[in-house]
């Protein structure tokens, strides 16, 4: 019997099937607890519940559902009347089985649900292992400071956290580490990218909607606040949130309840909110593009994730880790980084942070022709220290073009294709522009 398997919890007003419950549990390889239906107590969290109550199923279901909001609950009854089945389903049953005709169906249901519980527990355990803090590579003081700050706030699981950092610094990884190392680890981690959806759709995603609430609302849909109940809601790119929606988010955070679009009542939610942004929200609040009250509400525990260029030798540790994991994944002998490659890794400004590093190293590992990754294999951008976003004026046309290209590259997190598309030039032209910059050649192979 697995220690992670969900137990079977039977609430019954009948002795008729007493032999059956033990049989079902044995078959599923789980333990069973049988209790009389006249004084039901809360089933263990994650239990597979069967109610057999001779016509009183709906009342018992309401009691059980109040205690066990999302767990699997089935009704087992002698009668196969359609009306009873519908009532049970309306009251929150997951399934309805007629005994003895559908005993095998009930057996399969118990087995399937207990296994599902086992998989869910295993999933949480694996995620906790994967996102443990010790697994975040690096020992630079800047990273350590962020980790220590996060470690302090983990046990206080209602405290809102604001993660700040450039694109590619691992904000979602950090958020997951906070969730999966904390008391809510067995509950959902729900991530939403506020920049990925238009405001009207984001509102209905966050708060849910009732069927028919607007054109296209063909089905009732719970919001992500509800889905994340008892877990963590990660609001990425919070700086892109529309002003109107900022007000609604503030209300939800303060009242800890949400109302679906088109709905008539509020629903309580118990969640930890982790917000993340690469934007300076205090400046945005000062300029009126972000609500100051929401900023203060989110900024209870700010944590700044350092850019890779400020993390000293971390870049080498991470690079070596990526070489090893890529080689392992594709069954290759791990190549070693040459001295010149190491020098390049140390001096490159990494505008795309860990994301840029990962792409460069993976590519070099897979395309390496020998046992060594050399500087050229990294195919790093020609770099002149930190690219500036300032456009010089007055200046020659070439200088202006170069400055615009560099500024766009920074805005696009080092992604050359994205930058060239936004600039309206080919990627090759962008590469030529950057390569022709005075002083750039010295960085490639110093």
């Amino acid at each position, binding site marked *: 019997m697995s220690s992670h398997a969900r137990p079977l919890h039977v609430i019954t007003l009948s002795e008729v099937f007493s032999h059956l419950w033990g049989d079902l549990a044995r078959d599923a390889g789980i333990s069973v607890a049988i209790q009389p239906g006249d004084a039901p107590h809360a089933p263990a969290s994650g239990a597979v519940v069967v109610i057999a109550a001779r016509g009183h199923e709906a009342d018992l279901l309401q009691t059980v559902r109040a205690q066990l909001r999302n767990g*699997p609950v089935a009704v087992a009854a002698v009668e196969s009347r359609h009306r009873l089945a519908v009532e049970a389903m309306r009251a929150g049953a997951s399934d309805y089985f007629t005994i003895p005709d559908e005993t095998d169906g009930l057996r*399969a249901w118990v087995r399937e649900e207990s296994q599902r519980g086992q998989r869910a527990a295993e999933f949480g355990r694996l995620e906790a292992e994967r996102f443990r803090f010790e697994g975040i590579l690096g020992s630079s003081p800047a990273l350590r400071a962020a980790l220590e700050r996060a470690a302090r706030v983990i046990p206080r699981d209602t405290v809102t956290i604001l993660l700040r950092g450039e694109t590619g610094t691992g904000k979602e990884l950090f958020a997951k580490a906070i969730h999966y190392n904390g008391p809510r680890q067995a509950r959902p981690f729900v*991530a939403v990218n506020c920049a990925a959806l*238009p405001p009207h759709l984001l509102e209905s995603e966050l708060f849910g909607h009732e069927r028919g609430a607007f054109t296209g609302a063909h089905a009732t849909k719970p919001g992500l606040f509800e889905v994340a109940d008892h877990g963590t809601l990660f609001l990425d790119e919070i700086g892109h949130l529309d002003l109107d929606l900022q007000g609604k988010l503030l209300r939800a955070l303060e009242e800890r309840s949400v109302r679906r679009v088109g709905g008539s009542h509020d629903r309580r939610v118990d969640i930890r909110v982790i917000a993340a942004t690469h934007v300076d929200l205090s400046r945005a609040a000062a300029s009126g593009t972000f609500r100051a009250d929401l900023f203060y509400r989110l900024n209870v525990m700010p944590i700044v994730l350092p850019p890779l260029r400020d993390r000293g030798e971390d870049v080498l540790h991470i690079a070596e880790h990526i070489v090893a994991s890529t080689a392992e994944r594709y069954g290759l002998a791990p190549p070693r980084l040459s001295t010149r490659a190491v020098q390049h890794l140390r001096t490159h400004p990494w505008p795309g942070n860990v994301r840029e590093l990962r792409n460069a190293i993976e590519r070099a590992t897979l395309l390496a022709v020998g046992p060594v990754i050399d500087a050229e294999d990294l195919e790093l951008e020609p770099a002149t220290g930190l690219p500036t976003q300032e456009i010089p004026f007055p200046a020659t046309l070439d200088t202006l073009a170069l400055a615009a290209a560099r500024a766009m590259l920074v805005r696009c997190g080092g992604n050359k*294709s994205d930058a060239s598309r936004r600039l309206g030039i080919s990627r090759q032209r962008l590469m030529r522009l950057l390569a022709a910059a005075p002083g750039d050649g010295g960085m490639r192979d110093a």
Partner: protein
Amino acid sequence: MRDPHPDTPPVAEAPAGTMDGAAAATEASRLDRLAEASLWRELRRRVERLDQGALAHGSILVRYAESLLLTGEPGTARALLDARLPSLLRGGNRAAIRRALNLAGAAAFEAGDLDHAADCFERAWDASGTDNDALQMARAANNLALVAAVRGLRDQALAWYMIALPCYQRCGDLRGVAETYHNMAITHREGGQWRLAEEAERQALDYAMRAGNQRLNAFVEVGLAEVQLHRGDPRFACLAAYRAVHAFAALGEPAFEADALRVAALCHDRLGETHDATETLRRALRLCSHAGNAHVEADCRAALGGMLQRTRDTRDEGELLLASALAAFEVMGASTKAASVRALLTRHPGNPG
């Protein structure tokens, strides 16, 4: 390459004759084990050896329909579900009903009937929400997202994916999480959000590897190849695409093998290897026209048509292929893809638009 089916379970011979409830439950549990090991051909053969009466049992019916879908017989799956769904709905096996609705939608989707697919998935979503079945909710949400994505409603697609992810998490379904991230990546890609696409694809790869699922790994390889190709790295992308081709060939999934070949062909084209590119696409087309996957076939036609259209000698053939791809995309309601094919066709005056 590793054995694609490392966990082949021992399964007893299929029983003959009519089947009572107990025998059906036992059989269903055997089929579940085959499904968990992705042994879809084996599963299909096993059910086909059973008495026809076995398909009256909802759990056997849905597993069989699923095996048909996954072994390149979506038309047969659709006919089977259309014929059996009414009696299943009249019966009380709600678990089978929820699964059958999702499968009926998937069969309609593969045939390009998006309206019927969306209707089935919405019914599956409602039934699963009512019954609090997180797994079928996740599948319905994922499927509704796919329909929205094909219709070019990318925001709606992303919204459905966002809700599918925590539903899969709730069931501890690594494969589902990986699939959703991969689908999300496709939507980001189609919206030109390449950074988000790459991140989603990497999440997909991570979960697929942990799930030990070769099939998903192969899907993700195709996705990453597309991202790498966009990043201007066709050499790197080509490696990933061919890894996926071999994986799908080993899994016996010709439609997806064809899709991976399509991406490999795009890499050849970008590398200036035009002959390799067109030959690879012709091979892909032969594969997917047998497999009966309307979407992949239309994608391959569009890609080959676009390449052939560029050369005077092959322009006519290219335009015919583009026109057929356009017709297919329009029938399927795949508006974004239809628009890009139409743009290729209208480059040259006098062509059908």
